[in-house]
Every structure is written in structure tokens, then in C-alpha cells.
């Protein structure tokens, strides 16, 4: 076990900032836990790549709220879409289950009820469907349009019995 003398673990973010966090918080980061456990000797400082100080700030905020039982109050609304994705990647790297779930749900919430075009833009994806393919899938999925008839699976034909 590292730093057995104190209850604080030092984490160094990619931008060189050192955060001293409670052991309990470090425990929620499975990646960090693994590093601690693998090391035979005491570790002074654990470097966490892909994580920046602004990520750590939010992680500490979340931790504080969840300890106080107010994890529902944690909000990522102020982050724009790319910042949210970025944060999600950092949390994924650190392997923090609860916060990861919160963030994936936040991404899903932002995509909910949005148009296909918005979602493409959000993820920077190009449409690789041909217009015919697109129309075919759309027709199959979309119930809202009047007049779309339900098709028999394979070659079923309707017969009166």
C-alpha cells in the first residue's frame, strides 16, 4: 500500500497539477487503485494521463456531493458537448463506475429527441447511407407517418382462415 502514513493520495494530472485527494476518492478510480496495488514500494505521486485539472475539479465536486448524499445535484450542464465527451473519456480512463454512468446518461440525455442531423454534428459523423437506403430504414422505423403499411416478414401472405 502506498502512502500508508497519510490518508491523502497525490495525483498528478497531465497538465502537471498535483491534487491531494482522500484515499476514499482514489479508491473510486479503479485505474489508480490498480497502480497503487501493483507498486511494491510506496508511491509518492501517481500520474494520471489523459486527465486534466479541470477534470479533477469536477471529479472532486462529484465526490463531495455523493458523499453528502446529493449526487443527484451534480450537473454537467455547463459543459458544452465536446467538453462533456472529453470528460467522459477521462472518467473512462480512470475507470470510475458511478461517475461514468452519470456521464453516459448525460450524453444520452443530450441526444434524446434530437434530429438525426444534430446527432451527426455532435459526433462529427458523415452520413454514409445512400438516399435510398436511408429512405428504406426510415420507412421501417418511423411509425409517425401515415400510410406506411406494415410488411409481412419474408414472404408471408395474408390469408383468411
Amino acid at each position: 500500500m502506498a502512502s500508508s502514513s497519510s490518508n491523502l493520495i497525490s495525483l498528478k494530472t497531465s497538465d502537471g497539477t498535483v491534487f491531494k485527494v482522500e484515499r476514499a476518492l482514489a479508491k473510486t478510480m479503479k485505474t489508480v487503485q490498480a497502480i497503487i496495488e501493483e507498486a511494491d514500494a510506496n508511491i509518492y505521486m501517481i500520474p494520471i494521463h489523459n486527465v486534466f485539472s479541470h477534470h479533477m475539479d469536477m471529479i472532486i465536486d462529484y465526490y463531495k456531493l455523493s458523499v453528502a448524499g446529493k449526487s443527484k445535484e451534480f450537473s454537467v450542464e455547463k459543459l458544452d458537448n465536446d467538453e462533456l465527451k472529453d470528460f467522459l473519456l477521462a472518467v473512462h480512463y480512470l475507470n470510475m463506475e458511478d461517475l461514468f454512468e452519470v456521464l453516459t446518461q448525460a450524453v444520452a440525455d443530450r441526444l434524446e429527441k434530437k434530429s438525426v442531423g444534430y446527432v451527426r454534428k455532435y459526433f462529427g459523423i458523415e452520413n454514409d447511407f445512400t438516399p435510398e437506403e436511408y429512405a428504406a430504414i426510415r420507412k421501417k422505423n418511423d411509425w409517425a407517418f401515415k400510410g406506411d403499411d406494415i410488411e409481412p416478414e419474408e414472404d408471408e401472405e395474408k390469408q383468411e382462415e
Partner: protein
Amino acid sequence: MFSERLGAEESRCQEDFHGLSVSKRLVRSVSQKLRKKNNNRSLGEEEDEDDDDVNGVSLKCLTLYGRGGGCKVGADTGDEVGDSSNRRRSSSGEEGKGYKPVCGPQDTAVVDCFSYGVRDRFWRRHQRKNSEIDELMTTNNKMHIFLPDDILEMCLVRLPLTSLMNARLVCKKWRSLTTTPRFLQMRREGLYQNPWLFLFGAVKDGFCSGEIHALDVSQNQWHRIDAGFLRGRFLFSVASVQDDIFIVGGCSSLTNFGKVDRSSFKTHRGVLSFSPLTKSWRKIPSMKYARSIPILGVFEVSLDFPSYQSRQDKRFPRSRIGGVSDVYEDPHKLSMRRHCRSTINETEASTLPSRKAHKFLKQISDLSSSKNSRRFLLVAVGGLGSWDEPLDSGEIYDSVSNKWTDIPRLPFDFGIACSGVVCGKMFYVYSETDKLAAYDIERGFWIAIQATPIPPRVHEYYPKLVSSNGRLFMLSVSWCEGDGQIGRRNKAVRKLWELDLLYLTWTEVSVHPDAPMDWNAVFVADKNLIFGVEMFKIFGQVLDFFTVCDVTDMSNWNHISRNHVTHELDGSSCVTKSVAVLHL
């Protein structure tokens, strides 16, 4: 490490990256130079200092490499982007002019990077490419952060159905990601699904249009599905089976196709399966008897449940059905019987046929595992026959054998079945004369249940059984005050009762908030929710009321939708309506 950032999303830059073979050491050395910032950003962009320190490599710098065919150490320089023919032409012109350094101000930096001798070529190429790159970088002002597939999946799995359908239109990769069985299983298990109510039997202008109205409960949004294959069919029953809805029996007019015609009609044996997710339907083998409004029940069983085919030859002693039995005297014996069931099964005489059945099932299960490996049994009892006569026969469909098999008739003094539901391993059926019977799916016989007290009820309103979370409930309309006495103000009210399955007693649980105007109200359950659908015609108008109750929080019935559907429908829809609920 930076590969994590890039993920697997398509992008032109990405393709270029793969084409490059840049050694890590080299990249790191370049990034170190980058950190000594210059103000001479030829790309003309604002950048944070922080960005450059990402993993020692700036993504934007790499982009440049990719586009400009940059640092191709040891790689064939003939395959860079753009026409190489210009290379030589521009070299003479550009040489000697002040180059704008692309990365790092110092010549030494450039030397380090291009120590393999491609320096000149790079600069020339850069000059030509400069404007192009400028354009690229300003249109994609910010480099998109790409999520790797596994993270993407974890986000998409949380989407409600309608948004998920949209996600499938985004691109081919997303379509395949969100339609794999594994993804769908993850969605099911992660409890990201929501209830959807499907209302059948809509009659418009006297015509059975075959329209299905679907309510997405979580979004409170209605959808309409045109189901042409249901046109002209009425008084069928529906049951939800996994992700599909089974449409069983029903009638259609012989003379006026499509009309709700009770004078000249034909009763069907046919069964159809409708899948809302794929918006398709298929035929299921027909029942043995034609039935309209049969009482349906669905059992989900394991694959090694004994096949119903083998039971056809067994005879069931009449004495077990109906009449006086031990059960009447001592309800505890019923539960005792259940306890003994497990031991009895082991010593059951029918070892040989069931062994065969097991083998048979194993083969079938291999075949069916690709399509829908969850096995189910669909029971259909009662209903009205071809001459509108009430039926007491029953039959059961096994998804594995894909056949209907007879089951014993309802107990002989049972009366006309008016409602039924599966709860645990029993199919409970209630009759118009307030008898309750249960069909034991494993043992294959009916048990008459004497449950007390019988909830007093208004005669015309037949109770509806519903089951949720392994509990059995009944909705029954009774008089509230005055008990029907003449002269006193009487109020009819619909109450929710629960049957204690051990002691067989009915207890009142809650009162439905709406006045019971619809004698043909439909109640269906999904997980811990009970949905009520009422439609009735009043003052020339057809109204509909959708309510829901959470069995874990009994006192509350909530209205979820009012008068959204029925303003277009005929009054006869109140009679022909049926509802199924799916978890999608």
C-alpha cells in the same frame, strides 16, 4: 495513449494517421519543441497552451502531418496527399523566401524532425498545402472528440426507443452497433426500456381499419401504426409475448368486409404475431378451434420445460376437475400440493416420453436460438365459437414445437370465462358467475379456487384479472355507499383487489379515481405497473382515459393520457378494443 482520444470514428484525418508510421520518440521530440510556444501559428488559430501538452503530441499538429504528408520518416514519399508534380515546380520559386515555420520557431526543431532528409520537400509541400489546411482547420474549427465504440454503446443503450430509432439513421456503423443481439440484451438488462401501450380494435366510420395506436408512456407520445393485415378483423384478443404481440382469433364480416357485423360473420382460428420493432408481422399456426375474444395467458418457460406434445396422450381423471375437492375444505392443502410438486415430479411415471421430449427440445433449441431463444407457452381458453356460443375448451401453443395442443376443459360448473391472467406457474381464470380457477401449467390440470370473500360487484361489470410482480389482482366495480338500496344515493366505484395466494383471501387495495363508465375497461400490467384503458361514448362523443398504478405504491392511480385517440373513433371501438403492453 493518444489513440484513446481518437477513438474509432471515421474521419479523413484518421485515415491519414494510419498511413503514417511515426515513431513515438520522434513524436515526443517534436512535441517538446511545440511546448516552447511560438506566436507564429501559420494556421491562424487560437490555441490553448494546455492542448499542446496532451500526451506530448498535439492533435492539431498531427493533422497537419497527415494532410501535408509531413513527417514521413522512412516512408515512401510518393504517396502523399495531393499532386506531386507541383513539388518540383514550386521548389525553385519558394526557395530562399522566408518560410513560415509550421511547428516550432527554431530551425533546430525542424532539423530534428526532418533529420532524415525530407525537410525541403516538406516545406515545399507545406506552402502549397497551406491554404488548403487553413480551410480545413477553420471549417472544423475544433477537432471533434471521438468516443471509442464501447463508450459510444454505453451512451446509446440508454436512449429511449424513438431516439434509438433515430440513432440507427445516423450512419451504417451506428446502425450495426445498435442492432446487435448483444446490444439489445444489454438494453433489456440495464432496464433502459419503457412501457409502450398498444391499443387495438379501432373502428373508424364503421370500418375496422386495422389501426394500432401506440402510446410511448415515458415520453407521453402517441404513434399510429397502420396494420393493414388486421383490416376487417374485430373481437380478437391480444397478448404480449416478449417483444411481439400475438393477435388471436377474432371475427370478420362475411357480407360487409371490414364492418363490425355481428349478424353475418366468420370466426377465425388464425393467429398472427406482430413485431412493432421491426414493423412486421407473421403467421403463427392456427388454433384448433375458432374463437373470438378468447382469454389468453403467456408463460415464459425455460427451454427444458417438458413439451406439451407429449401430454396429448395422457388422460386426466375427471374427478380432479370441478366438484368438491380437498381444496374447498382446506386451502392450505393447495399450498401443500405445491410443495409436494417438486418431489412428485421426480417420481413421475412418465419418464420415458419426457426424456424423448428433452432430447427433441434440445435439437429444436439449437435451431431457434438464433431467432428467439426464449421459450414461451400461449394459452387460449374460452371465448365465443363460430355460432357465438361460449366455449369452455382450451388449448396451448408451444413456441418450440410451434403447435397448438388441447388442454382440459374448464371445470364443468365454472361458467363463462370473462377474464384471465398468468401469475407464476398458474393461469388464473375468472368467470361471469364469480368462480375462480387456475390451470397448473406444469401438472396440466385445473384447480378450482375458493377464495373468500368474493368481492361484491355490480352485475354488468365483469371483473378483470391482472398480474404484476408475481401478485394477482382484480379490478371489480362495486357499489360504494348504500349497497344498491333504492332511494339512497349510490355511487359505483372500481376497486383494485389483491388475492393472497397462500390464504386465498381477497383484500381491497385501492380505489380507482375514475367513475366506472366503461364496462369493457381493459387492464394490463407491465413489470410493477398496472395500466387501465377505458373508452366510452357519452353525449355523442367517444372519450378515452388511460391510467396507471404502481403496485409498489398502491394508493396512487395516475392519469397518463386523456382523449388523445378516440376523437376519431366510433363508439363500437369501446367494445372491440383490446390492449397489450410491451417493454421496449
